[in-house]
């Protein structure tokens, strides 16, 4: 795989944004290139930072639909960026996938699942990743998810 996955992090909730940032930046193969706290800044920041992966919250300030158009536009204008959606609300996961997100999950997934999700999403769009790498990343994540207890919802790339 590529030496470092460049990640842009976007969400309006400080606690979860801080948690995701700390989880991702503790990994040697990941680098946070920026954080976005307002929904209007998501696309301009993607343009400015050109990340490999955008980790995106789905509900912003109570609005379920806040990211639908953003995801669709990003998918259209930046097809090489993987979009990983994390949300508290399960019902938003199919919606994010339909809009064009690479993968999506609820925020109660484990730290290792967060990392697996980002790596698998990156593998699905990166030209640097060999043909078998995506399958490997997906299998690893599926295995990990099957080991976790509870009803966390996860939608793979």
């Amino acid at each position, binding site marked *: 795989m590529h030496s470092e996955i460049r990640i842009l992090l976007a969400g309006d909730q400080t*606690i979860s944004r*801080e*948690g995701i940032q700390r*989880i991702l930046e503790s990994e040697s193969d990941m680098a946070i290139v920026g954080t976005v706290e307002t929904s209007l800044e998501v696309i301009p920041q993607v343009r400015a930072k050109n990340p490999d992966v955008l980790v995106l919250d789905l509900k912003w300030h109570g609005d379920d639909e806040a990211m639908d158009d953003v995801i669709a536009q990003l998918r259209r204008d930046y097809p090489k960026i993987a979009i990983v959606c994390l949300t508290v609300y399960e019902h938003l996961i199919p919606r994010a996938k339909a809009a064009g997100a690479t993968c999506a999950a609820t925020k109660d997934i*484990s730290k290792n699942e*967060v990392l697996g999700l980002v790596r698998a999403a990156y593998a699905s769009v990166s030209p640097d990743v060999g043909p078998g790498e995506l399958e490997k990343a997906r299998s690893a994540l599926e295995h990990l998810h099957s080991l976790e207890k509870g*009803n966390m919802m996860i939608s793979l790339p």
Partner: protein
Amino acid sequence: MGNAPISVLLANLPDIYLTGISNLLLNVEHSPFRIVGSTSLDNVMERVRELRPHLLLVGLPRKGVDVEGMIIERAEKAMVGIRKQFREVVIAVFAIPGVEEYQEALAITKKAEVEDVLSLEMGGAELACCLRQLFEQRTEVYKQCLRDLPIGDGKGYESFAEEVLPLLFKPHFSRFRSQVRRGSGDRLDFVCRNEGQHSFCKTILRAHGARYVVFETKNEAMPKVAHLRQLAAFLTPATTGRFGILLVRQPPRQLQTLFKRLGDLLRDDKKMIIVLYDDDVLEMLDMRMRLLEPMSHLEERYDYYMMHM
């Protein structure tokens, strides 16, 4: 900012929130918080018993995870149990505002006497401010409780001390045990271990071999010779060490008489007893609220006794 932190135990929080809350609390400007651990619901009672945190923050599951309501039931049971056994621990639950879980969290607050429902949408400074306020409110409650406690209510005074002593002296004194029976038939009100880190802890360890500290509570207006004699008899070099603290409500009219009696009783055995009154406890609670170290007050009282005995 003081040097006595507010200890926080986190329970039942998913990794993202656990990491986020921990980092926000530790990195807030002049952070008064110390995260002492994180735990699942299964072990929360044991962890509270072991760590005696000032604040316990519990995450409630969302409906998608807790399809049969089992987790919320366990969370509620755990919090009710902790509230019964460890009244000094402030409990707050995290929930997402505007959804069903939040309403459920509000219902639990009543059953388990949980102090507050916190929002997972809070910012770091707001969260820190809320937690600080919860801690201060609890300390204020204890101050009022002592002022309202009538002289003569021995059980009430013991219960008060059981909750307040860990709040004041942990982590320097740890493993508080109440009503400790010894082979001799003596029953000590409270015994705790001297961890030996604070300068005062080192002093009493060196001067009195105090690996443990014995507290006796007497809800009486003034200390009596019989109280001092009883506590002095409990202090033995082979077991507790030779340092004890007597809690009574008010100082005697003649302090010099107290010092003389203490001197006569203790001088030859390298034993030492400090007597603390309501004013001392209120002062220490006030210090704790301002995140200052109540152990410094104890040290001051010790020095004063040493000079006057």
